[in-house]
């Protein structure tokens, strides 16, 4: 009987030597004349254990990790191919790993279990059930199901997805588009990437359902160019889904069509903003458009367009398969369902944690994350990407929910949690927030374009001890001008991390501190 051994193929596993591990395992099996099949699965999202090798046994899949290529020989020696559990890298049954077991995986139910490109695997785990249910309904009832779910956009703004779809649905019939925002520019986030690399049919299914719901027959995935593996996998998945009748003309003999194409971005953070993204898709510079008109009414090429984040679209198949209410049963307050939080930065056990809204940051960072990688005390955590505030310890016990976070100036955003230990110089982080804005501003409005440049200069002066008091006041005013006067959230929120440093870590913005820490002020 052949033994199946799994070695993940996602970017993180790859970045830590998974390809080498796979080829060494293959060779070891051959040398021993063992009947072993190496299957490249997706990642389970337990990144601190990557490369995470799994072996099929009668009791279930057992895991080993993290497996450095140099450890393959000793693992094989210790009976990896038989699922033996004596090696120090042995982790027991995969499903019993606490980090995984404690999660509520609705969207990510399949990642790491399947071969991402196998349609058969996808179908085995309820794949395309949502699409089949959608095909059997009229478009309004699909939209209603999404409304019932309470799903809100996972790209950052948390706008109710059902209402957005209703707007596009209600526009007069004609060319409409579904655009998937796969620009995932926030540092500390990788959940979109995990969907695309580890369960690409999930996104395809979600977009196809969106097309049926609003009457769109063309979709685009706007993918950042920093994701070469996702690009390859998505393109192949689109070909296979089309061949299998799930995409293209006459989907599942329904008489309905939906075509899908991947378009690559070109390294511009601002193109994650939906109107900038549409400009870019149309072939121009990614200058932000003033709203209104909303993309739902005048979007791509002037036509009604749904723009949704990968995770919003990837939640749809579950909602159509199990019903909107089943999704809404998770969560708290007006934040329904689950959120994919991503533990990153200085963290011992980094990875994807999908849970119902309502857990605290502290639980995430300690129970799941295990504290910092360095073992030093945690000092600050940036949630919600580069435009999110740095949160001090006093804010780590708030439950994660959109309204709750907004109440204290926090941003849930796309769910990135970037942890820093006490060696961080928060003055550096404040400066970087402004610097990032100088690099990535689209340049359309003055508060953002000029403000960020001034911001860097003023922070440098404060840290060099030039008129520190006066310059701190100036920095405060500059932040307010950017918040109030910018056209979009790039300029409007860049001050959030800066202001949070001024409020919660003021000692890091003084010249003395820069000197003691041995930091260079400029």
């Amino acid at each position, binding site marked *: 009987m052949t033994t199946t051994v799994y070695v993940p193929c996602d*970017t*993180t596993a*790859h*970045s*830590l030597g998974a390809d080498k591990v796979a080829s060494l395992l293959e060779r070891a099996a051959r040398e021993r004349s063992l009947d072993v099949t190496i299957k490249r699965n997706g990642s389970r999202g337990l*990144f*601190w254990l*990557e490369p995470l090798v799994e072996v099929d046994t009668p009791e279930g899949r057992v895991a080993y990790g993290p497996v450095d290529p140099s450890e393959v020989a000793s693992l094989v020696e210790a009976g990896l191919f038989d699922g033996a559990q004596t090696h120090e890298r042995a982790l027991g049954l995969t499903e019993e790993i606490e980090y995984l077991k404690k999660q509520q995986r609705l969207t990510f139910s399949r990642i790491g279990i399947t071969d991402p490109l196998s349609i058969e695997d996808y179908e085995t785990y309820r794949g395309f059930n949502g699409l089949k249910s959608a095909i059997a309904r009229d478009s309004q009832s699909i939209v209603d199901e999404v409304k019932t779910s309470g799903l809100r956009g996972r790209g950052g703004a948390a706008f109710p997805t059902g209402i957005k779809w209703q707007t596009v649905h209600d526009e007069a019939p004609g060319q409409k588009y579904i655009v998937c925002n796969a620009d*995932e*520019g*926030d*540092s*500390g*986030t*990788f959940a979109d*990437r995990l969907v695309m690399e580890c369960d690409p049919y999930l996104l395809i299914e979600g977009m196809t359902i969106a097309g049926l719901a609003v009457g769109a027959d063309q979709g685009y995935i706007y993918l950042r*160019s*920093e*994701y*070469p*593996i996702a690009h390859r996998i998505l393109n192949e998945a689109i070909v296979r889904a089309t061949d299998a009748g799930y995409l293209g003309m006459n989907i599942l003999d329904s008489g309905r069509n939906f075509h899908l194409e991947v*378009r*690559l*971005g*070109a*390294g*511009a*953070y601002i193109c994650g903003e939906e109107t900038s993204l549409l400009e*870019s*898709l*149309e*072939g*121009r*510079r*990614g200058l932000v458009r003033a709203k209104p008109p909303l993309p739902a009414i005048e979007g791509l*090429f002037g036509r009604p367009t749904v723009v949704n984040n990968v995770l919003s679209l990837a939640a749809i198949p579950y909602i159509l398969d199990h019903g909107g209410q089943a999704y809404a049963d998770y969560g708290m307050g007006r934040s329904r369902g689950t959120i994919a939080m*991503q*533990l*990153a*930065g*200085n*963290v011992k056990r*980094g*990875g994807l944690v999908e849970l119902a809204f309502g857990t605290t940051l502290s639980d995430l960072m300690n129970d799941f994350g295990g504290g910092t*990688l360095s073992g030093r005390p945690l000092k600050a955590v*940036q949630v919600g990407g*580069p435009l999110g505030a740095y949160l001090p310890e006093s804010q780590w016990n708030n439950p994660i929910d959109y309204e709750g976070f907004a109440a204290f100036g926090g941003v849930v955003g796309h769910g*990135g949690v*970037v*942890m*820093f*230990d006490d060696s*961080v110089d928060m003055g*550096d*982080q404040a400066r*970087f927030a402004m610097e*990032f804005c100088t*690099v*990535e501003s689209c340049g359309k409005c003055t508060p953002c374009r000029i403000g960020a440049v001034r911001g860097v200069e003023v922070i440098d002066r404060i840290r060099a001890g030039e008129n520190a008091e006066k310059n701190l006041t100036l920095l405060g005013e500059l932040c307010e001008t950017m918040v109030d006067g910018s056209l979009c959230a790039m300029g409007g929120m860049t001050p959030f991390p800066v202001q949070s440093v001024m409020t919660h870590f003021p000692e890091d913005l003084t010249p003395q501190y820069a000197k003691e820490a041995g930091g260079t002020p400029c």
Partner: protein
Amino acid sequence: MSNASAPATGAWTPALIQEVIDAHKALPGAMLPILHAIQDRFGYIPDAAIPLISETLSCTRADIHGIITFYHHFRTQPVGRNVIHVCRAEACQAVGSRQLEAHIKKTLNVDYHQTTLDHEFTLEPVYCLGNCACGPSIRVNDDIHGRVTPTRFEELADELTTAVVEVK
């Protein structure tokens, strides 16, 4: 092996560029797909491509120039045999990317957007590679590497240079 993902450096001719443009010109919003295809094929976007695109898509040369310069990914100069992108974003900063960045610049003796004298490496900044739980991260051509320490970087750079020599 690492060479598999090395950037393309095929020599261009106006006819070859036109061929690439023609293969994509019918797409709605063809501009970015065309620029990507040219850069993928020739390693960069030669100046000579601009009038050809302008002619085909009926837009001004100034427009095209504006588009190319807006996007960090596009480049108008040839690059080294290997392009190294160093992640400068927050999650990597939290695990020492600032030190790694300084080390790489010193080792290669170049700053961002520059190429080493031996044309082996071009250095570019990048803001997140989606590998944020296992930083510091760098991208070498199409391969992403995680938990890159200064020592690991030197090993990588050695492997890349040796691989090139072997091929020759």
